[in-house]
């Protein structure tokens, strides 16, 4: 039983990270219909910035996470301006391909700048808490709590502030919102900034638990895509639910089915769900 609860906690940790990454991806998709392949690589750069902030500049963990968030937000806005905005009216497969191009560039740049070595962010909160036979490091608790706080903050921002509602308005109807005076360009940039910030913070949270390396973005972006496809592309509740579902499935699957094939499970879940429902669980229909 305690093994089961242990795996639930691990699944929630994993799910929290997936949620934060998938939320950004789904926000961007909702606004611009861009499947932003470079998103996972922004996550990767975020992990590196946190790593160097702490080791090279001796910054506090939280400060370097914040710095990473801001730097990646700026990087996100730059990709929007340079890559996606010029292709706004291009056919959708072209935007997809451009996103792949941005992804290739970021990965190669990371490899050139920082090498292919595996690094790990020095753990700050590595005390082990244990109750009822379940042992959890403080870092995992921090990940779970921080993710919930960020999700709540994002929802409040989108529902309760005028800027937030303008993002939702553009997602629902870009032409209509520019008609009522919303600057769609600014909203696009803002969305990229928020999404990239979330990805960088997720990376900073995950950094002390997992490893940091140039291709770390590749698997997470594909899983984030799995999540938003499961949840319906552009749907925020879908991304949250999907993120936790995937995290839990993977962690339980790794324990009870096969450790070797744990990454395959995520993709199999997608194949099964799309086989039954080709438009995802929460989609309004294509």
């Amino acid at each position, binding site marked *: 039983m305690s093994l089961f609860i242990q795996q639930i906690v691990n699944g929630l940790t994993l799910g929290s990270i997936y949620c934060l990454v998938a939320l950004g991806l789904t926000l961007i998709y909702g606004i611009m219909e861009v499947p932003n392949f470079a998103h996972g690589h922004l996550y990767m750069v975020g992990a590196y910035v946190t790593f160097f902030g702490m080791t090279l500049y001796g910054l506090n963990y939280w400060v370097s996470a914040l710095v990473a968030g801001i730097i990646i937000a700026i990087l996100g806005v730059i990709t929007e301006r340079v890559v996606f905005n010029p292709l706004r009216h291009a056919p959708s497969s072209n935007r997809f391909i*451009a996103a792949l191009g941005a992804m*290739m560039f970021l990965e190669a740049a990371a490899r050139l700048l920082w090498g292919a070595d595996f690094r790990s962010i020095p753990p700050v909160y590595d005390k082990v808490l244990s109750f009822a036979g379940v042992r959890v490091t403080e870092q995992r608790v921090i990940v779970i709590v921080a993710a919930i706080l960020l999700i709540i903050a994002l929802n409040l921002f989108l529902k309760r502030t005028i800027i937030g509602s303008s993002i939702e308005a553009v997602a629902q109807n870009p032409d209509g919102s520019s008609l009522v005076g919303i600057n769609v360009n600014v909203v696009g940039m803002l969305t990229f900034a928020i999404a990239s910030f979330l990805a960088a913070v997720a990376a900073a949270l995950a950094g002390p638990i997992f490893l940091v390396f140039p291709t770390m973005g590749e698997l997470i972006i594909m899983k984030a895509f799995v999540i938003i496809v499961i949840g319906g592309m552009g749907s925020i509740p879908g991304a949250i639910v999907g993120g936790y579902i995937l995290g839990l499935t993977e962690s339980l699957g790794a324990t009870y089915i096969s450790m070797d094939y744990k990454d395959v499970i995520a993709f199999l879940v*997608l194949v099964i769900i*799309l*086989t039954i429902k080709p438009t995802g669980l929460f989609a309004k229909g294509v």
Partner: protein
Amino acid sequence: MLSKNQKFKWSWLFYLAVLILAFIFPALNPGSYYIQVVSLAFIYAIAVYGLNLIEGYMGQLSLAQAGLFGFGAYAAALLTMKLQLSFWLAVPLASVLTAVVAFFIGLISFRTRGHYFVIFTLCIGVIINLVIQKWDAVTGGMNGLIGIPKPTPLGPISFDSLKAQYYLILVFLLLTVFVMYRLVNSLIGRTFVSIRNSEELAAALGINVMKNKILAFCVAAFFTGMAGSLYAAFIRFIGPDISSPTLTFEFLLYLLAGGQASIAGPIVGTLLMSGLTESLQFLRDYRLLLFGPLLILIVKFLPMGIVGLIHKLASRSPFRRSAAKSLNPSKTVKGEGL
């Protein structure tokens, strides 16, 4: 009308010259390194022709291509190593097997559309890649398979030398180009293009969209699997890398650089980009640093690739006024040239 005929003649002369060059290339003694590079580019080009059919003519961006390439390679390798089949049996068998796998993938994946389809096929590619990595007992896991037999001699012709292998691959490539040329200029090819341009319209005309999509995907997979099995016999060592999404992205780059929905595009793009990679040896691991932005620039400024650009320039020249109207592709609808 006269100018159109003339263009016809000129282009055929040009293709003949290219063909002769391809055949005498090893006789020019370019050194085994270059023969190897060009042979490998030919193998990739065969796979890119598969992608061209499904993405260029059918408009369905499948990102499972490297997975299928890897599947074909492993299938051929296992057939020759474990079952001791001859190369001439293993290659068609591996290609057909890949097409069969694609049939089942197609049955499910074509229920989805647009971005869903792209992500779905990407996931299929990742699954194939991960299974190859993890299934140690059959695929050798991360170590891969070593010592795949060379192509079996065909009567008196043996394929021990690099030059002989070059010609073998060239013949397979020409076969692929010929089949693709006949296919896309047939009624079936026209059907594919009509589905690409408007699924609803095609369906309204009585075309079975699902059946045609699966057909295109299977044919594409057949050639991709064939390329994979040739790769296995030529390189004689395969690892899980050849099924990774990175290779799919490279195929895509080759296709876009050359020009999608054209018969010359895949070979032009593959040769050019492989050549570029080889001449930028010092960039080896960092070539994506260049390829990434290049991909973005191509999509933005050259959506029809180099072949598309040549067609555009040719149709602009003052002697070809009459051809200009029919060949000039509009911006949103992909045009097609030879």
